[in-house]
């Protein structure tokens, strides 16, 4: 099974409309809608609900004043960091001040969402507007403050340095400086967030369904905030229509408020986020400004690199500094920077919070580093691929220690990778060396084309751990659970493949459950491209444990030595002697000695079913009943995947439209469990990379209003905008885990802006320093660079009289 293109077992169900998403559940539940701030920054003077009280179907209206116990405290700062000395998190409902458009002020519970929205429209909130801080420039000015007690709007300043970068740059033969910027985008899963809570008053327990990337941690958070013993709370993820990072943040205000209201009202309560809410009250990512200084020698080798950047973290910092820390470390990609200094400031603005979105800070870092590579190539007149090659970490240098601290608090050490081989594959795939003749032919037709590339390294599979539980049922089927969650990636298939191989059963007999705390209580979550590495390894170790137990019991039954046994298609047999075998289901029966025969299978395990050894206890010492096991995987560090993308673009000489003609990917995620799933992940990632490079941005005005908060105006590309993607794989196994795998989930998105900027620059002949780029922006750049090497073609057709 391992390594095969197995079709995803989840697809028949999901594609034929039998998925069960959050809003498919809880038809008996009361519905919630929120009054959300229309102002980016304001004091709340008064909330008047009198006009709303008469609405038929209204159940309750809650404001901050209703919150009790720990629900009235700010939400947790999930990932504290010593340099984050000005961390701020919101209250579940605003306490007198709002810091971005969309912040929740009042919660309405009603018979259905229509009524709830009617009520929301009738609640009058009086505001005293405060000066909004929008964009990094305004934040850095510091004239107005997001939080009155945070000087200069600086949440944190962090510096890491290896060697003496300033001295290395000063001593270098060549120097360059670059100013680069990247705009905001967002995860934008098709299914927004949603929470359904049922309070069982008799049991004093909560059952919560939520569309999250971490059910175990939401469970802990709800228990803590609602002051309920944690064993009285269970959190289940139904099918999830995409996460892409935004659902790793938790607890969202609604994940506390909905269970809180359900307990208070004694009725099931449900909230399902709508698209506008998702735009203005979930999370965004990407917005950064970089100032780079670089020194290099005559061959284009880096001597020193110094990067200062400003990261827009929005109004609050619940997810700590993870995004800028990743940018600052993963910026280095496959290169040796010489001396390196990086300093960032994480800045408050009166906008939606910024938390990881697929790629999580890496696309920005990759864009910056690859712009540096292209700048060096342009300056020295060296082929862009050659400059990269000269700066690569070589395979013989693995494991490679950068001397920095990574996002998991552990040293940034690359475990494996063969960057020169990856680049060679990419050049062959795209036809790098033949491009000039294509360019010449295109130019002769009056067309503008360009080629670009981008290389990245991605720390994946970060710890601390994941676990797995596996049980063989008496019918021989295998039930597997792991605590982390699935958002549609194909985990059920991938994990079943691993179990089928390790245990020796048919894949169809394996059922996998994820993200259900009733089934598995210890987990971290789905993020950082970690499921195959973490849960894949944990489930493999678990299967090995259960296999050993099965062999022990079977050896006894077959009167054979354990070492002589093998398991094939669920049958345990003596190697090379057909006829003597026992199926796993029967072993499961034997593993659990019974008194009562509730069915024919169970009858075989009852006390009078066969001969007994009167001297031994029914369950042998040191064993447990049942053919099941649990195991965990916890690595010493992250495993580092890498990849390289090459893009061919054509830009329209008149309209400045940008068309992708070819998109080539070489990808190394170690051993590949299921190439079809990995390619699917790459396709989705590339689509989001193209989106971030050419289409998506968050269009805030100076007042902090998000002008394009709908799918009409936020240009998420359709299938028609996503190019055909050509993929080649390289497999350099990770030495860090039993499967040799590395993460693949986020990879596709990372070098999108870098490679596309490189290609546009190549087509146009002037530097591209800001992404995303629209046709209008390219048009304006052309006006600033009138001496660009392609004269504009003019052929009048229709003109107005």
């Amino acid at each position, binding site marked *: 099974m391992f390594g095969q293109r197995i079709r995803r077992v989840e697809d028949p169900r999901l594609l034929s409309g039998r998925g069960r998403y959050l809003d498919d559940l809880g038809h008996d539940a009361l519905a919630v809608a929120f009054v959300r701030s229309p102002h980016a920054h304001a004091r709340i003077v008064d909330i008047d609900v009198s006009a709303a009280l008469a609405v038929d179907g209204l159940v309750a209206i809650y404001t901050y004043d209703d919150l009790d116990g720990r629900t009235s405290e700010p939400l947790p700062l999930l990932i504290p960091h010593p340099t984050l000395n000005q961390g701020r998190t919101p209250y579940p409902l605003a306490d007198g001040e709002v810091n971005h458009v969309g912040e929740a002020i009042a919660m309405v519970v009603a018979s259905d969402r229509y009524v709830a*929205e009617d009520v929301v429209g009738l609640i009058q909130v009086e505001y005293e507007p405060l000066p909004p801080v929008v964009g990094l420039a305004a934040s850095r000015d510091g004239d107005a403050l997001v939080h009155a007690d945070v000087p200069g709007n600086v949440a944190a300043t962090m510096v890491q340095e290896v060697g003496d970068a300033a001295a290395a740059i000063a001593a270098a033969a060549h120097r360059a400086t670059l100013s680069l910027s990247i705009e905001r985008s967002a995860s934008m899963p098709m299914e927004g967030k949603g929470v359904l809570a049922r309070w069982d008053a008799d049991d004093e327990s909560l059952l919560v369904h939520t569309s999250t990337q971490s059910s175990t941690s939401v469970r802990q958070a709800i228990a803590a905030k609602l002051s309920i013993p944690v064993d009285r709370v269970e959190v289940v993820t139904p099918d999830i229509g995409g996460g892409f990072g935004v659902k790793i943040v938790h607890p969202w205000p609604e994940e506390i408020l909905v269970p809180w209201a359900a307990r208070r009202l004694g009725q099931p309560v449900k909230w399902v986020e709508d698209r506008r809410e998702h735009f203005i009250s979930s999370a965004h990512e990407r917005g950064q400004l970089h100032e780079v200084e670089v020194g290099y020698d005559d061959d284009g080798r880096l001597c020193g690199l110094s990067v200062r950047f400003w990261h827009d973290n929005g109004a609050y910092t619940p997810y700590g500094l993870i995004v800028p820390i990743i940018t600052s470390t993963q910026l280095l990609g496959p290169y040796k920077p010489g001396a390196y200094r990086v300093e960032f400031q994480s800045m408050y603005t009166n906008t939606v919070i910024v938390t990881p979105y697929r790629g999580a800070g890496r696309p920005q870092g990759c864009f910056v580093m690859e712009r540096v590579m292209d700048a060096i190539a342009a300056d020295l007149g060296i082929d862009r691929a050659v400059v990269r090659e000269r700066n690569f970490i070589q395979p013989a240098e693995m494991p490679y220690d950068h001397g920095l601290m990574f996002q998991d608090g552990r040293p940034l050490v690359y475990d494996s990778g063969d960057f020169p081989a990856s680049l060679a594959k990419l050049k062959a795939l795209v036809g790098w060396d033949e491009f000039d003749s294509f360019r010449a032919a295109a130019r002769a037709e009056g067309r503008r084309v360009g080629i670009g590339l981008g290389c990245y390294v991605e720390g994946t599979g970060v710890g601390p751990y994941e676990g797995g539980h596996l049980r063989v049922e008496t019918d021989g089927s295998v039930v597997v659970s792991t605590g982390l969650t699935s958002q549609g990636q194909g985990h059920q298939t991938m994990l079943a493949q691993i179990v089928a191989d390790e245990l020796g059963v048919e894949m169809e007999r394996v059922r996998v459950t994820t993200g259900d705390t009733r089934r598995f209580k210890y987990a971290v979550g789905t993020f950082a491209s970690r499921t195959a590495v973490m849960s894949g390894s944990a489930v493999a170790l678990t299967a090995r444990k259960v296999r050993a137990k099965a062999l022990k019991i079977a050896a006894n039954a077959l009167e054979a030595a354990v070492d002589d046994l093998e398991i094939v298609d669920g049958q345990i047999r003596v190697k090379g002697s057909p006829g003597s075998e026992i199926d796993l289901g029967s072993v499961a029966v034997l593993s659990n000695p019974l008194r009562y025969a509730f069915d024919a299978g169970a009858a075989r395990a009852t006390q009078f079913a066969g001969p007994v050894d009167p001297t031994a206890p029914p369950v042998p010492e040191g064993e447990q009943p049942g053919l099941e096991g649990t195991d965990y995987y916890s690595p010493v560090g992250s495993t580092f995947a890498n990849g390289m993308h090459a893009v061919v673009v054509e830009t329209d000489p008149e309209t400045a*439209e940008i068309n992708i003609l070819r998109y080539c990917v070489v990808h190394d995620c170690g051993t590949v469990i299921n190439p079809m799933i990995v390619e699917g992940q790459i396709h989705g990632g590339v689509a989001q990379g193209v989106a971030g490079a050419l289409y998506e941005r968050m269009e805030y005005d100076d007042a902090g209003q998000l002008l394009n908060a709908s799918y009409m105006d936020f240009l998420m590309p359709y299938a028609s905008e996503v190019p055909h993607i050509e993929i080649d794989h390289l497999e350099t196994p990770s030495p860090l885990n039993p499967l040799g795998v590395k993460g693949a989930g986020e990879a596709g998105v990372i070098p999108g802006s870098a490679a596309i900027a490189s290609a546009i620059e190549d087509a146009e002949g002037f530097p591209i320093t800001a992404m995303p780029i629209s046709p209008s922006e390219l048009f304006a750049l052309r006006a600033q660079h009138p001496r660009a090497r392609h004269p504009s073609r003019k052929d009048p*057709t229709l*003109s107005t009289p």
Partner: protein
Amino acid sequence: MKPAPFAYHRPSTVDEAASMLAATEGKILAGGQSLIPIMSMRLAAPAALVDLNHVTGLADIDVSDTAVRIGALTRHGDLERNVAAYDANPLLRRAVQHVAHATIRNRGTTVGSLVHADPAAEMPAVLRLLGGSVEVVSTARGRRSIDAEAFFVGPLESALEPDEVAVSACFPHPPAGSGSAWLEIARRHGDYGLVGVGALVVLDSDSSGERGGVPDQRGGHPGARRRHRRLQRRGVRRGGLGGRQDARGRGHRPRG
């Protein structure tokens, strides 16, 4: 994103629809592809909807010697796929293919699009270019036909009175010996165009003339127009336009 409360009426004849519309001061619901999003975002809250979808006889496409006439329930997709209409006037298909995506074209009506009068919409520009008309019915004033020129009053504003039901639209055939093209620039395929051009070139034996219609652009784009206009020009050289359409089509996905 749930609409405010409204009353729902389901007439089965045009006359019934017209009288309900007058009585309720409501809105006609056709394909709902523009109206429902507006209501869900609570940008509009009509007290009543009069659902046209159960009125019989409004979905026909009638291709005569002189015109293509479509009913108020003819979906964009029906018009797009209708072979007789295409043979008589290829511009209709060429333009309607640029309206949104297949799923939306399968529900949205072409007459609804005319009434909605979005300055960035394709089919109002086509009606204007061809010099077509819209036929409307009200209880108070009966039946009347409004020429395209008079029909488009301003952005999202047509000459339809609040109590009038549009029952059909008539797109006259272009003259013999003519050719047409539709070009459009949008950020994403299927989006409303930033700018679009429909062109009709009419040739005769000794001279030639040309007519072009420009659907307006959206929101403050330089040169944006607030309503659909028809441009006319005479005495151009032969050729020109068709070739351009082919050039622009390169690299674009097949539509529909």
